[in-house]
């Protein structure tokens, strides 16, 4: 009885923390000035947010098979986030998107602001 209460409380705590990271990632995606900063916010949400939510949901499961599935899911999204981050950043740099503060983008930093 008490153990169930503790597990439920931990689940709620983990889920709320994960939701907070997803909210932070989305706000960063909307408010950060250029694509590299947005990559930073996005990968935080992907790795930490999904990690916390997966941990919270895994506490409620009853079979190890489902926990293993959740672990595979988390690992997949983690490696995908790292690969996507590298690919998008290198492509944007090669395409000529200047990072904010590099000097070349002084005139464009105003137009890249979120609406």
């Amino acid at each position: 009885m008490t153990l169930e209460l503790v597990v439920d409380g931990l689940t709620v705590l983990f889920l709320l923390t994960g939701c907070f990271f997803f909210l932070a990632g989305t706000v960063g995606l909307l408010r950060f000035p250029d694509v590299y900063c947005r990559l930073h916010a996005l990968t935080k949400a992907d790795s930490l947010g999904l990690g916390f939510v997966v941990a919270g949901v895994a506490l409620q499961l009853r079979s190890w098979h489902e926990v293993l599935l959740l672990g595979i899911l988390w690992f997949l999204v983690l490696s995908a986030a790292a690969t996507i981050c590298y690919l998008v950043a290198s492509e944007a740099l090669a395409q000529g998107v200047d990072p904010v503060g590099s000097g070349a983008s002084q005139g464009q930093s105003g137009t890249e602001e979120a609406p």
Partner: protein
Amino acid sequence: MTGFLMAMALFISLLIGLALLRVWAGPTIYDRLLGVGIVGTNAVLLLAIIGFIYGRPDGFLDLAITYAILNFVGVVAVAKFLDVRRASRGEDHQTATGAGEDG
């Protein structure tokens, strides 16, 4: 517990809408790509939570893994397509705004 999970699912749906705002507004095509990526991650999360609400986490987790793979392959395919297109056009493409407007 189910009510709390439903509230979380609603919250994540709201976050999907916010991320779509970036997809709509993003000045370069890479911003749109990032928005699509976070929508994909949120969809995976939503599937896991919905499976838990319905009491069938097994099947819904399989779906979530499929969505994770699809999201990964999709974003990598678009990024490599942009790479190939840039290579076929030559290296004289230097403006940041041009990347979004012709995409």
